[in-house]
């Protein structure tokens, strides 16, 4: 980590601010990347766009999937997807994810939503697995030959030990999360209704990167109360100031999801050369230009 420190009277100030491009420069081919948010809510889309513009490839994605997964699939960036769903939420099915799946292009590891949480939690706690009933009897075990069960060392209600699913740890090389407000040291606040799995995603990652609607020099607790200080800087390697960075996904209370934009995106998947046109207009442009184009829509 290359955080710069300025010596002040009370010790060095911590500054981990980066641009989106500088974050992407720290990523590498074949890595396992966790992406925060949920469906079409609070996705770090400015970082996703920066990845789409880069030559990064062969990613393993771990995501409560939305357009982040769809766009990265459309651009051929994904080798393996670890998921329990991919949805645009207001529009149930993600068109580019569907296309990649139906073409047999993706390696996948499918999980129940609770298993997904436990895998990240196990990684964050440096455990090899966490046990759960979720998954027992379903086809998840048949689909994933690496997924094992574990026998409880204690007797169950019948006197015999219970067999449980052993959800393997899902360690991440890096996690990308979009928040409402962060300071330069990487402390951050999620003012949205729901922090989703973002904290545990950062905990499971060797390096956590944030994008934020608002970047402040300090004093986070003055807004929103200390219960909203969801992310501690010990989990964060870099922060990029990205106002509107979650667009077209939501970032409440700053912004709702842009449904007409998502509809345009979905339509593009049904058109010949649709992705290429979408990409030219909405990906292969600098983020500042993206923001002004969104404002002009």
């Amino acid at each position, binding site marked *: 980590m290359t955080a710069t420190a300025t010596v002040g009277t009370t010790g060095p100030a911590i500054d981990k601010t980066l641009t989106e491009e500088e974050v992407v420069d720290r990523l590498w081919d074949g890595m396992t990347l966790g992406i925060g948010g949920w469906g079409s809510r609070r996705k770090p889309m400015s970082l996703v766009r920066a990845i789409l513009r880069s030559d990064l490839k062969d990613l393993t994605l771990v995501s409560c999937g939305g357009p982040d997964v769809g766009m990265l699939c459309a651009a051929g960036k994904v080798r393996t997807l670890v998921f329990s769903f991919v949805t645009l939420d207001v529009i149930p099915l993600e068109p580019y994810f569907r296309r990649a799946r*139906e073409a047999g292009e993706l390696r996948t590891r499918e999980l*129940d939503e609770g*298993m997904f949480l436990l895998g990240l939690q196990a990684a964050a706690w440096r455990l090899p697995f966490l046990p759960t009933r979720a998954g*027992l009897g379903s086809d998840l075990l048949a689909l994933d030959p690496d997924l094992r069960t574990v026998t409880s060392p204690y007797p169950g209600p019948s006197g015999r030990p219970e067999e449980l699913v052993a959800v393997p740890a899902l360690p991440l090389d890096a996690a990308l999360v979009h928040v409402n407000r962060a300071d330069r040291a990487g402390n951050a606040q999620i003012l949205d209704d729901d922090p989703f799995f973002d904290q545990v995603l950062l905990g499971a990652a060797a390096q956590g990167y944030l994008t934020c609607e608002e970047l402040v020099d300090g004093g986070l607790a003055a807004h929103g109360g200390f219960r909203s200080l969801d992310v501690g800087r010990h989990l964060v390697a870099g922060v990029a100031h990205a106002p509107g960075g979650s667009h077209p996904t939501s970032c409440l209370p700053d912004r709702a999801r842009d449904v007409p934009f998502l509809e345009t995106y979905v339509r593009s998947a049904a058109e010949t050369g649709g992705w290429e046109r979408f990409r030219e207009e909405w990906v292969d442009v600098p983020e500042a230009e993206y923001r002004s184009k969104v404002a002009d829509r």
Partner: protein
Amino acid sequence: MSDGVQKLHDRDVATGVRVADVCVAALAETFRGDGEIVANPIGALPRVAGLLARATFEPLLLLPGRDAFFLDRDGEIEGWNPYRRMFDVVWSGRRHIVMGASQIDRYGNQNLAAIGPDPRRPERQLLGFRGAPGNTINHPTSYWVSRHSPRVFVEHVDVVCGIGYDRAAALGPDAARFHEIRLVVTDLAVLDFATRDHRMRLASVHPGVSVEDVVAATGFELAIDADVPETPVPDAAVLDLLATLDPDGTRHTEVAHREREGRSP
């Protein structure tokens, strides 16, 4: 089937009862006896069913509203239940979900992940497994199917997401002790698993629908008693309540096809 639907349509004109009202009232019944748990009906019509259950016979139900909040009977936020905390609820068993099903079989095995014989390259990718495995093994589950058809009610689902009674039984009594598929409500009928081996049974047919209609719309053999009752039609008091609970009539959109069929010659 069109004759039967026509009959309901005639009654609709006479009494104001519509297909969705019958479905909502039938689905509300699935929450009877649940007490102070999280009722989690997914979709517009199931949501009205949850509201109706709370407004009538299950006043203690907690109902998720928009996003991460529980909304009380006046629509005010009464609790915060973000995504991560929902798993505390699921794994504690204090929840009853109503899910949809892209496919369901005679034992209640459900698929909402993908259609086609090869799950690695599905013919149609759907949502994914979502929380179906964890839901079904941890707390009561019911299903709402807005179009009862042989494409949904199949001999074998392509991939088992929510687990049915045969899968649960194979796990043994300890693992299966929290598993319960309570009801399956469709646009044609109410189905349950009140048989010796928990095979799906035709519990009632909606007004204007015959047993033969349901059999024709089901891709496997249902358990059918000698006398199949008619699903109760909600009375005037319930209809008034529905007008208050769902003033925009969101419940009707999911079964609009039934009323269109009913009006066709």
